[in-house]
């Protein structure tokens, strides 16, 4: 008889030291606003790829306590358009080497993702996306219902359910990572390099000289800066309002929930845009589930209960075995959504202020990729080629990157 460890038994211990808690200095070459995954990854690649270490990451709460701590950690790169495929695949390749780069466990588990199709139109869109992915060198397959069942035996593939499974796209290299460990890995690495991680420090305004920002006002005093990098996810509009800059961003609550710990039953990631649920099983054994955003604008880091009810109804139809699982807790983050479901990265009307926002429901997977490209953007004062298509000006030129089909609700 083989003895297997109970789920979660091989999780690494929590580290005994995280990072320093320094007082803010008077001046930094680069001030990053927002200590989530994107801000931390940007700091990491500023150090690693550009040798820039006089950097502060300012976080209004605790480090990576925003969406970084609240997301459902799905990582994939099967996006439709070339522009999105390029940045998300760049990111996925970095995830594949991130544990070595950070010298820290992140539990990246490439267990694959099934994106289900429930209607004929879903099927056509999915097959098209698979072909587009392949042309971009991204691993993708189209699977029929029987193959879906083989990969994830607990899915209900009966034909008489309300939204029968007509097949799925499959990206084997997709996966999940332990989000807190990812943040801690980046945090420790940049702290070692001399970057100041300053928590409990909310940016409340800016000091402006013509078309340059000379410093940020914070709850811990004024801090001078060479360059400002906004990585504040759902709160970007609040900061841009301070600068008199408008951007087409809308902030919405996005909820997730976990079940109690269960034996391993769910070997891959399953997502469905049509019935609005997606699920994976965490390393310890919780079923981790999410759905779409709550419809209204909100900053309250909670959402409405009926959204959860609908999501659970969809989940139980697709996975009848979930009917007996207990819900352990639910929460929300605040995500910033754009009209074309693609991020906004690059220049603002201020010469030395750069924005990274609008990742909406799906920016965790981009963490190392955007960190890499945004650091390049800050170091050179020009967008990295992978983020150049995502400038604010696309809403005026009309060169939108419309990823609704691949990204709007799914993560």
């Amino acid at each position, binding site marked *: 008889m083989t003895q297997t460890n109970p789920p979660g038994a091989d999780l690494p211990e929590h580290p005994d030291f995280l990072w320093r808690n320094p007082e803010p200095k008077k001046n930094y070459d680069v001030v990053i606003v927002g200590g989530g995954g994107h801000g931390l990854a940007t700091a990491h690649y500023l150090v690693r790829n550009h040798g820039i270490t006089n950097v502060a990451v300012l976080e209004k709460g605790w480090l990576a306590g925003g969406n970084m701590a609240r997301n459902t950690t799905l990582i994939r790169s099967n996006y439709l358009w070339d522009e999105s495929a390029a940045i998300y695949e760049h990111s996925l390749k970095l995830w594949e080497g991130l544990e070595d780069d950070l010298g820290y466990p992140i539990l990246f588990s490439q267990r694959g993702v099934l994106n289900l199709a429930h209607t004929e139109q879903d099927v056509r869109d999915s097959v098209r996306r698979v072909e587009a992915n392949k042309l971009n060198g991204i691993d993708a397959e189209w699977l029929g219902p029987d193959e879906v069942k083989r990969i994830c035996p607990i899915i209900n593939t009966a034909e008489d359910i309300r939204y029968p499974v007509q097949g799925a796209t499959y990206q084997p290299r997709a996966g999940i990572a332990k989000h807190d460990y990812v943040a801690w890995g980046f945090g420790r690495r940049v702290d070692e390099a001399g970057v100041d991680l300053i928590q409990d420090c909310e940016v409340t305004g800016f000091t402006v000289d013509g078309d340059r920002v000379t410093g940020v006002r914070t709850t811990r005093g004024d801090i001078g800066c060479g360059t400002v990098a906004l990585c504040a996810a759902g*709160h970007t*509009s*609040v900061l841009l*309002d301070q600068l008199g800059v*408008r*951007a*087409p*961003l*809308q*902030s919405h609550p996005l909820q997730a929930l976990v079940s109690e710990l269960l034996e391993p039953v769910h070997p891959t990631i399953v997502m469905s845009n049509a019935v609005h649920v997606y699920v994976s099983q965490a390393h310890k054994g919780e079923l981790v589930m999410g759905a779409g955003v709550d*419809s*209204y*604008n*909100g*900053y*309250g880091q909670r959402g*409405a*209960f*009926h959204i959860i009810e609908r999501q659970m109804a969809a989940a139980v139809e697709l996975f009848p075995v979930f009917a007996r699982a207990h819900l352990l807790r639910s929460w929300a983050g605040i995500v910033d959504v754009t*009209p074309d479901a693609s991020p906004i990265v690059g220049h603002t009307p201020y010469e030395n202020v750069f924005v990274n926002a609008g990742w909406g429901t799906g920016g965790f997977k981009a963490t190392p990729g955007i960190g890499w490209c945004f650091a390049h953007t800050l170091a050179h004062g020009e967008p990295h080629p992978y983020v150049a298509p995502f400038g604010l000006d696309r*809403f*005026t*030129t*009309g060169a939108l990157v419309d990823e609704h089909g691949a990204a709007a609700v799914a993560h």
Partner: protein
Amino acid sequence: MQLIHCPWCGPREEVEFHYGGQADIAYPERPAELSDQEWAEYVFYRDNPKGTFAERWSHSAGCRRWFNAVRDTHTYRFLSTAKPRQKEVRV
């Protein structure tokens, strides 16, 4: 779930309503004269305040009528709702 005060039907459960975004976005008076930037603002740009926000809701599963509301986006509380062009408000 919160109760939303439809100006015609009175308080009803949130699930009966549909969100319509920022209120009072008027179609441009002289569309042919708009610059690309102005078109972009009309089509894509909406306010996104943390605090009070004037927005549109529709009582889609009830009287099916649109109305304006003022809501706090931080607490989600409705401060007032009103029929279109109606000045007086109630909660």
